[in-house]
């Protein structure tokens, strides 16, 4: 296997298992120079489609975190097959307006900018060849709205299916392009944060 930073997206559904849908994300590095210390992001507003028709949805938000919570299970979300699904990567502005909430959206999760209202959609922190990077990506207002709609098409349309995609997402190359002399820091809503979120969303849609 060549060196790189990989994303694994995996989903699985089974009629016999009461139509549960499992979704899994795993960010994985095989490059010894890349040390990912934090990787967490919000996903939510899941909608499942079959031939373009909505067949199920789950509107909650979930905080996914590398090595801690990489899998979601939707119980009895749909009663048919699906050939595509979409979700929100990051927290949308409507959810922001609902005020303080508990669970994964609780501000104690440290995914909320206290000095500038708004959820942090994704945090990726670590070091690349001893250069630190901290990407705190978020923003809910134009022109720095960072949350993204991700649509994933599935290759099989049937009641039992399994799919996985193990992609070199080119994270290191993207990071190198963004690195300055002191590393790469994004700590507030701005154009670079939007671009990073668009890039991550696009990578999630490639498989």
């Amino acid at each position, binding site marked *: 296997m060549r060196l790189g930073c990989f994303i694994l997206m995996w989903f699985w559904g089974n009629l016999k298992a009461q139509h549960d849908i499992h979704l899994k994300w795993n960010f994985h590095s095989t490059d010894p120079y890349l040390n990912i210390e934090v990787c967490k992001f919000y996903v939510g507003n899941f909608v499942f489609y079959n031939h373009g028709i909505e067949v199920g949805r789950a509107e909650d938000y979930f905080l996914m975190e590398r090595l801690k919570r990489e899998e979601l299970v939707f119980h009895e979300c749909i009663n048919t097959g699906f050939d595509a699904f979409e979700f929100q990567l990051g927290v949308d502005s409507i959810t*922001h*307006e*609902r*005020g*303080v*909430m*508990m669970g994964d959206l*609780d*501000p*104690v999760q440290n995914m*909320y900018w*206290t*000095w*500038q*209202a*708004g959820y942090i959609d994704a945090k990726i922190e670590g070091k690349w060849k001893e250069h630190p990077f901290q990407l705190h990506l978020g923003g809910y*207002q134009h022109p*720095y709205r960072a949350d993204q709609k991700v649509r994933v098409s599935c290759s099989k349309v049937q009641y039992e299916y399994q799919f996985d995609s193990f992609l070199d997402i080119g994270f290191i190359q993207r990071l190198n392009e963004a690195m300055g002399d002191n590393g790469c820091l994004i700590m507030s*809503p*701005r*154009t670079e944060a939007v671009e990073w979120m668009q890039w991550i969303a696009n990578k999630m849609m490639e498989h």
Partner: protein
Amino acid sequence: MKNRVILGIVVGVSCLAAWNPPFQYPDHWPAPQYAFEHNAIDSLKRELGRALFYDPILSADSTVSCASCHSPYQSFAHTDHAVSHGINDQLGNRNAPVLINLAWQRQLMHDGAIAFFDFQPLAPITHPKEMGEDLRHVLIKLNRQPRYQRELFAIYQDSTMTSERLLKCMSQFLLSLVSADSKYDQVQGGVLSFTEQEQSGYRVFQAHCARCHTPPMFTNYAFANNGISVDPMYQDSGRYKISHQAQDVFRFKVPTLRNIEFSYPYMHDGRYATLREVLQHYSRDYHSNEGAADVSLPLSFSEKEETDLLAFLLTLSEPAFNFKKENQFPRAFFQR
């Protein structure tokens, strides 16, 4: 004064002092911005929020409460202090604004950094130069306090303090701080009349000030560059720090002028000690920063007009608001 009632619900039994809201405001005021459907007015939650507001337990070393910089006797501003004080005698870089009529504000803080009301207390609680605390640790400390456990149980039938309960109860208290009974309001309601000087000042106000300090809230809630020079120590770029939009350089939120008499010193950094100095800035100074001007300085009013304007501004005061017992330190709660 004809009042509107949003919603008033009383739940449970509590030992906190009884105070019966409901949320009231004059009929001619616009509708509040706050989404009450997510946090309906509740007198017990409001009282718990009041206790939290006055409790220094929210700060890292239990020395600073919200009331340290927002005194009820000055319409919840910080009289005599140019900028806020935090733990370990640290100074911030902005003046503490009044906390009145907050339900109408779409964005909070001088730069509008906080757009979601319930989250506002997180800013001072976690700011290293203010309370320097961590929300998770605040909850741990509060959950060790029997007095909070008792009140929480009375409200929620569960004694656990959560971030949602903490922040929504604080919102309840802050939202209840409505000041709407100044002389100006009584004149509008036909109860009192302006003096000749106040009436003259009102005309000056309408000609020069009302575009930004729009009645009845006496702010248009916009961000504006009023031409004051940039403090070399703070180098505060204002709204730009949040929006990163060039047109927002040196813009700050237009503050309400209600109870302006009590909220000295003035401007976002508290540079002017008196209202007279503020008016002299507008009448004599030229635009003194590199941001785009939202006010064409100097405004052309005479010394007499300046004095008349000052007389009018004093009609926006509601002294009784500063002494409302229901807004002050809840002594009984902390004695238990």
